[in-house]
């Protein structure tokens, strides 16, 4: 194709996006669009899969059968989200194995929040309430993103996430209405998960890159700081309702702005975790790598068996 032709295609493409038309796998798309989407969708998929681990840590010790079943189902949903998202990503011409390789080699990122440990049962509540809460704020706009398979996956993901978020909040509510020991457990979980959740929206706008392009492609509709503000505004009253305190002395309602003011994030901690030195980065990655490596013989067996069955069929036909 000539450069002119490509420019023409790009123009048509940008117009389609501007008209809110969905881009589908077989449609022409700029290489950068493809690469950006592979990066973002796969990061999102990896986050779902790695996100199974901190919550999975409490399945065997859940305090009631009802909670055990709910947690197990929730973690399973995350595996399901991983599946849709990997499939969406595969439509962009990359295989699942390549995506796994990127994760296992440390080349691909996943959400840093999952590098914190779950150390009490209340953490399961806090993750549902805060982490899923933050995730939804990040993700809801993606239900209208330009790439069709991603948008459709996100609709399903968001529906389930908001169920998870309510479930998490309900765990917190039960603890806060429980014994003093339980309420203390809830407060402690909020203390530990608040700032990492705030970090889920990424660097402040002045530090953030790629935003303009992402806005255009509807991979992003609001800036990091806007989303973070939305999270604070949504969560602060919920904490009040629970009767526990967000660990930020600067948190205060600003009547004038119509928003909460809040304190500064510890960006050193943010970058430490992003760079792979959080409390559980090594454990999370090695859990995934181990599962994958120990599963190799199983996947090989399934392939070998399928081939044998296929050969038999062909033989019967022939």
């Amino acid at each position, binding site marked *: 194709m000539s450069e002119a032709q490509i420019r023409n295609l790009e123009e048509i493409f940008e117009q389609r996006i501007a008209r809110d038309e969905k881009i589908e796998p077989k449609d022409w798309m700029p290489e950068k669009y493809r690469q950006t989407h592979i990066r973002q969708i796969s990061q999102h998929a990896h986050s779902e899969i790695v996100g199974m681990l901190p919550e*999975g840590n409490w399945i065997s010790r859940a305090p*009631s059968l009802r909670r055990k*079943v709910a947690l197990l189902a929730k973690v399973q949903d995350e595996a399901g989200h991983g599946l849709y998202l990997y499939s969406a990503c595969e439509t962009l011409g990359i295989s699942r194995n390549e995506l796994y390789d990127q994760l296992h080699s440390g080349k691909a990122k996943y959400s840093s929040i999952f590098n914190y440990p779950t150390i009490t049962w209340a953490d399961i509540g806090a993750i549902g309430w805060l982490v899923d809460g933050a995730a939804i704020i990040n993700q809801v706009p993606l239900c209208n993103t330009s790439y069709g398979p991603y948008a459709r996956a996100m609709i399903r993901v968001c529906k389930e996430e908001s169920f998870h978020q309510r479930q998490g909040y309900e765990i917190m509510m039960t603890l806060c209405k*429980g014994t003093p020991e339980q309420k203390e457990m809830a407060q402690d979980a909020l203390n530990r998960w608040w700032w990492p959740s705030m970090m889920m929206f990424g660097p402040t706008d002045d530090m953030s890159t790629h935003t303009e392009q992402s806005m255009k492609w509807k991979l992003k509709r609001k800036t990091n700081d806007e989303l973070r503000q939305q999270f604070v505004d949504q969560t602060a009253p919920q904490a009040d309702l629970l009767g526990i305190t967000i660990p930020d002395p600067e948190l205060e309602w600003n009547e004038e702005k119509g928003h909460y003011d809040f304190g500064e994030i510890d960006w050193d901690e943010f970058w430490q975790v992003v760079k792979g030195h959080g409390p559980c980065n090594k454990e999370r990655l090695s859990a995934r790598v181990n*599962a994958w490596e120990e599963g190799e013989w199983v996947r090989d*067996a*399934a392939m070998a068996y399928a081939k044998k069955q296929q050969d038999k069929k062909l033989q019967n036909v022939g």
Partner: protein
Amino acid sequence: MEKKNLVQYIYGIADNALILGQRLSELCGHGPSLETDIALTNISLDLLGQTRSYYQYVALLEGEGKTEDDIAFLRTERQYKSVLLVEQPNTDFAYVITRQFLFDAFHLALLEKLQHSKDDTLNAIARKAIKEVSYHLRFSGDWVKRLGDGTDISKQKVQEAVNMLWTYTDELFHLTEADSEAVAEGIGVDVSQLKEDYYGKVKELLEEATLEIPESKYFQKGGKQGIHTEHMGYLLADLQYMQRAYPNMKW
């Protein structure tokens, strides 16, 4: 039937679901592929769902404000009446699948009889569970075939698992006192009658999976009397941790 015996009879069924459900739940997030991870979690969810139905019934029978959680979490090891098979550890995927297959084949046969129990709660639970367990058996059986007739490595691993776990199959067909009484009253299933058909079907599938049938004369038993293997204590330490550490709280 005496309430106490009926409760014991239900433990003999329900505890298998709890313990196997717990074992499978330990694997969540660590499977060889997302698809098997999801499938095994489904089986775990089904089993834990069945567990809750049985224990809710036990709680009702026992009265005194007992809950399903008291029954699940606050018994001593000797009071759990699950068979030794289901508490065996998740050594590797071959063990997980073989344990599942050897249990599912029994479980389905049991439920097919239990759906005709004179006890309406039990027969209702059984009818609902049959659909679930038919799926479990199809899944585990298919995987035994894949592993048996897959690669040399997978064949060796699944054969080892079959050989090791085989010694726990005989116990499935032992009648406890509670069983005998429940059978006499038309409530319980005479599991000893399921044995021949079970081994027939299991052997047929193992043969299809090109595996050898173990020729063990010796079998292990004890779970039905609450005499478990050394694996059980560690499983319970995790299972019961929260209920033991924070007694009398709502979650």
